[in-house]
């Protein structure tokens, strides 16, 4: 996950629930990602937190009676950090090379009760449907060159797969809503 630009957004959103230690953040991300989270290294969280502090998006406090090391500090969002979390949650850019970002967005939104994950899925589905509609209209046009149509067919197939996954997301988060699932609980 080295160099993944959205890690900053995910870390910020995970802090939205409450001020947290770095190691706690790391274990929450690993839990949310399952087997895909194995590759994440501990240092990366602290590098990210350091950058976020420099940018004024988080502050940290030293825990009392313990040596001052990054993993002993408790991190919290600044108002600017909170604002950035809100903007990230409502952004509907698609597709991204990695589905983990959207997945973690839903996890973070549910954990901190920042937004309804099902509503985020709805917004994403609108965006994907809009793209599918444009690609399909182009693909249905008989005057399109068959080789160019091949690319459109690929786009249509991928968007349909995305929609199927969003349906699975919707089912899961609707169910979680019903049963009161909580991140890290």
């Amino acid at each position: 996950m080295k160099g993944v630009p959205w890690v900053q957004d995910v870390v910020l959103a995970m802090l939205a629930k409450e001020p947290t230690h770095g190691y706690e953040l790391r274990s929450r991300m690993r839990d949310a990602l399952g087997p895909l989270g194995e590759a994440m290294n501990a240092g990366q969280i602290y590098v990210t937190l350091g950058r976020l502090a420099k940018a004024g998006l988080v502050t940290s406090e030293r825990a009392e009676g313990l040596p001052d090391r990054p993993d002993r500090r408790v991190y919290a969002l600044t108002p600017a950090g909170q604002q950035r979390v809100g903007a990230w949650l409502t952004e509907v850019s698609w597709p991204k090379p990695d589905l983990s970002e959207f997945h973690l967005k839903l996890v973070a939104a549910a954990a901190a009760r920042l937004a309804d994950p099902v509503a985020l899925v709805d917004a994403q589905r609108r965006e994907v449907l809009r793209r599918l509609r444009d690609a399909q209209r182009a693909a249905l046009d008989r005057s399109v060159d068959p080789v160019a149509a091949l690319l459109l067919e690929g786009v249509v197939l991928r968007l349909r797969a995305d929609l199927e996954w969003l349906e699975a997301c919707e089912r899961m988060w609707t169910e979680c809503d019903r049963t009161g699932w909580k991140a890290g609980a």
Partner: protein
Amino acid sequence: MTGSTILRARGLTRRYGWDSGLVRAVDDVDLDVPAGQALAVMGPSGCGKSTLLHLLGGLQRPTGGQVWLAGHRIDTMSERALARLRRDTVGFVFQAFHLMDELTAVENVELAALLAGQSPRRARRRALHLLDRVGLADRATHLPSALSGGQRQRVAIARALSNEPLVVLADEPTGNLDSAATLDVLRLFEELRTAGQTLVMVTHDARIAAVADRVIAMRDGAFADDSQLVSATGTGHRGWR
């Protein structure tokens, strides 16, 4: 009620069973479909979308709420008047085609016009024109059993258009079709949409939904999301070509 609203529902409800067995197939739904709109209702099987379509088309009666078709309130209308209104204003397309096996393609298409009292000659001319429009001019005298699934559905679409309906109601129109036949049907619905035909399609197939201008997500009998699909090109819903 404005003249340009083809379908309107208020508090539309359809329940089955009672007590612990009560199912709210359609649960207090409000809907307006303006003339020329292509609407898709999406949802998993069992979410109530087929029941909704049947209520809107007057094939089933609601247990609560009101529904208007072409300005006429149909939930309280007599069976006879409703049958006439349906014949004059609605074209149905079903997943299982529902063609008459004993009749040829052209006879299936002209049947509704003949029942409505049109002259046989005029009905035949229009039926042949419609079959040509769906790309089946050379299959006019074939029985449904001699046609592929995709061809049968295209005959059914031609039949749905025979009474020049104000609205075409389609229930999983691609549900029984392979992907090549699905493309033919998608192309036809796309042509209908471009021509300004009012369409209501219920489906779990995203490709059919992507033909629409507006998509409603239905869950447990209610509308969970209702969105206009504005094209990325920003040229508006008639501006693709």
